[in-house]
């Protein structure tokens, strides 16, 4: 009996020592998670059945709260001046977009990313785009084209006219104010006369995304799409709208 008590005491001491060590280790690399676990520690009980059950994926649907948080984050981003999206936030937002929307979305395309991932968008017609005649790519269907600020196109590249890395890439142009995104293809760079905008969009793209609806000032977020979705597809954030 006494041996059993001693073994129990030893085991408990080892658990406590292990906990202190694990907390100290984790606090160095991930202090937020230690703080969170500590805060819920008192509510943790050992009465949960130890049987491993398969995860019920239906119960894992993205919650309204998570969607609302995403929408708030997107709205906050569009309110910032262009160029204010740091890489850590961009990656965190990419993960959140993928998680909530279920699509492969990223602000990076291989090792590249746009100088501006958010900003103002204006209507661009094909004739505007052909200001530099020989520079037309001509590959993206006009209806779902988006153009990128010349900032992403260096003087050197402009003089040599190499295709910029972002050309032909599929993107989703999000309009958080209308709670939707539209799948588009990057057709080229904005002509110099439009450089106060970070993006240009075809008429149909702007109409579909409601970029010019009353009270919406053409703010958008552009994200690379890593999967094949038809141009013009709408990525609805209807569930987010309901929470507003």
């Amino acid at each position: 009996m006494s041996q059993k008590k001693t073994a129990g005491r030893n085991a408990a001491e080892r658990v406590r020592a292990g906990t202190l060590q694990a907390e100290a280790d984790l606090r160095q690399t991930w202090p937020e998670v230690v703080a969170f676990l500590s805060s819920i520690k008192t509510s943790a009980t050992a009465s949960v059945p130890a049987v491993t059950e398969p995860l019920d994926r239906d119960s894992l649907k993205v919650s309204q709260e998570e969607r609302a948080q995403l929408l708030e984050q997107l709205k906050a981003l569009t309110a910032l001046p262009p160029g204010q999206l740091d890489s850590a936030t961009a990656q965190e937002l990419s993960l959140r977009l993928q998680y909530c929307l279920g699509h492969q979305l990223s602000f990076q395309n291989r090792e590249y990313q746009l100088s501006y991932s958010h900003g103002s968008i204006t209507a661009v017609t094909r004739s505007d785009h052909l200001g530099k005649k020989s520079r037309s790519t001509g590959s993206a269907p006009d209806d779902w084209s988006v153009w990128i600020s010349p900032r992403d196109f260096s003087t050197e590249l402009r003089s040599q006219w190499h295709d910029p890395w972002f050309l032909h890439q599929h993107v989703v142009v999000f309009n958080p104010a209308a709670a939707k995104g539209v799948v588009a293809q990057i057709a080229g760079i904005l002509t110099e006369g439009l450089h106060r905008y970070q993006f240009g969009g075809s008429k149909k793209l702007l109409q579909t995304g409601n970029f010019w609806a009353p009270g919406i000032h053409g703010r958008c977020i552009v994200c690379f799409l890593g999967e094949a979705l038809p141009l013009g597809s709408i990525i609805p954030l209807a569930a987010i709208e309901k929470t507003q």
Partner: protein
Amino acid sequence: MTKLLHQYYETQPIVQLRQSVVTRLSAADVAELDYLLNLVVLKAVAQLLDTAARQHAISLLRVDPSRLVVWLDQTYPLARMTSIEALTRVLLSLTVD
């Protein structure tokens, strides 16, 4: 009742090992053991995640541990094996007399 994070990584050997430790502990110490096992899983997972991924991971954990587990399985398949190894290692160390 919501399962604890480490319980999503329980294999049969882990269940047996934990049980052999639990029999020696009081109820309060069992709660401490579960806390330790959660720390062990997160410590193992932390090695695989960068700063942004950790931020996302904790936001999922706050909602429900199952969300974190599903996301890790999809995004960091190595996380499951790493967590199981870490849990086994710690439980073995607790069963040695």
